[in-house]
């Protein structure tokens, strides 16, 4: 019962605080969707040639952050900002509220809850709920632009769309990489939501025990570094189009990724909760 009260409170208060981020999610989705539609227009001559699936695949297509072969050839280090931006915004959105809520009136709510674990679990659930809403709004932004451009609103990835993504020069897809039968981005979207919710809980735990900025730095650094190598245990791989088994036969399987996410999320909540259960709480206000 107290868990439900705390979660209801967090949703009401947290939503107000996260409103700028949610607006940013819609706008960013729309901007990135527009970029993909523009690519379709330039490459194929038809803004509506890409399906919604193609647009999502293009948005989350991502080169290796540091390609040493290219660097040795004298080319600069490449970083796909369009891939990084959604995650940079996503992980920033739940940085402030949980930690701020341990001071002042928030500290009162912890004491009134009667249980540090109830408070911790409610906050963890809030992180997941906020994450779900963020992605819903982000993909709504993409879908809105796709709809307005007249794209086919199917989640399937087309061969034409794939060829344009490859020729864009930013793809890590091998030329002979084979599309899976009926490849669509539905499972890929599930992958994005699952992996980021899991990493959100890791960031939440670190931010509560250490500080917000180190927590953010740890998670973003892990995300970028885990893209360097293709491996089923590196969660960053599940966020890149070209490495997803739902789209390409050689990709990382979703079931392994989600299983890993469940384990990591559980560990983050459990370990963080244990430390939080003994943490010194100020009780007073502080200047933010």
């Amino acid at each position: 019962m107290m868990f439900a009260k705390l979660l209801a409170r967090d949703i009401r208060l947290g939503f107000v605080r996260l409103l700028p981020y949610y607006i940013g999610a819609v706008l960013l989705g729309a901007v990135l969707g527009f970029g993909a539609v523009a690519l379709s227009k330039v490459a194929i001559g038809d803004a509506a040639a890409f399906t919604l699936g193609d647009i999502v695949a293009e948005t989350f297509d991502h080169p290796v952050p540091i390609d040493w072969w290219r660097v040795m050839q004298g080319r600069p280090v490449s970083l796909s900002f369009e891939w990084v931006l959604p995650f940079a915004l996503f992980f920033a959105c739940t940085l402030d509220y949980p930690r701020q809520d341990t001071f002042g009136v928030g500290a009162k709510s912890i004491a009134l809850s009667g249980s540090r674990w109830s408070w911790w679990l409610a906050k963890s659930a809030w992180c997941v709920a906020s994450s779900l809403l963020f992605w819903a709004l982000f993909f709504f932004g993409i879908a809105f632009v796709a709809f307005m451009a007249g794209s086919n609103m199917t989640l399937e990835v087309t061969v034409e769309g794939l060829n344009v993504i490859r020729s864009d020069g930013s793809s890590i897809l091998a030329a002979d990489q084979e599309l899976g039968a009926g490849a669509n981005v539905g499972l890929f979207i599930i992958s994005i939501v699952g992996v980021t919710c899991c990493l959100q809980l890791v960031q939440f735990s670190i931010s509560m025990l250490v500080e917000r900025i180190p927590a953010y730095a740890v998670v973003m650094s892990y995300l970028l570094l885990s893209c360097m190598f293709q491996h089923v245990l590196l969660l960053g791989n599940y966020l890149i189009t070209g490495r997803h088994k739902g789209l390409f036969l050689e990709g990382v399987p979703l079931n392994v990724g989600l299983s890993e996410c469940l384990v990591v999320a559980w560990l983050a909540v459990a370990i963080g909760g244990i430390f939080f259960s003994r943490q010194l709480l100020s009780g007073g206000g502080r200047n933010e």
Partner: protein
Amino acid sequence: MNRLVVQGAEKTVRGIKVLDGVSVSCESGRVLGLCGANGSGKTMLMRAMTGLMYLDKGFVEYNGRRLGRDLDFIPRAGMLIENPAFLDRYTAFENLQYIAALIGGVADEAIRSRIAYVGLDPRDKRKYRQFSLGMKQRLGIAAAILGNPDAVFLDEPTNALDESGYGLMDRIARDIKTRGAIGIIASHDAAMLRRVADEIVRMEDGHIIQRQRRAVSPAPMQNGLEGVPKV
């Protein structure tokens, strides 16, 4: 009858011993005053009593149940620890509504009553960020006594209050004793504590240096406590 006992409390924070063998107790219908200068350990002791901080040694028990083992926090406790802090974008009433939702069973009329009790206007539409320091302090006190808690913890409650603050503390202390609640008030204002507390302990550098229990007619005091040998 509720009873709060602190026995042999010790705590070190960042290498500094903030509590050193502190033992106090308080029962229903009584007010315990914690007196001392800044940094004497009053706030740390209050944090330990409320469950916001767990001790390195010693224990805090509430009705025989130990904090950190049997309980995380004292049930039905109201607190004002350090400076008050609320939600900037909301009015006094809305802020207390959020707290009341967690307490349960506190009607809107009771919230308005508490706001008026501490000298604020329950119909005031100003947001918390527009409050003066005194108004913020009063709202903090209102939050601490909202829902008639069984234990009330007030840390420097008269900070930023004008002279009417003494009258407010008198009323709160009387209410605590009448309802049979436990009252713990920490303050460097010995004069205020003499008016409201049944027992006053003076703290310095994390330990208790003097105790005085209120007699029927308390003798005039100097420096807060007089005629009582140092502990």
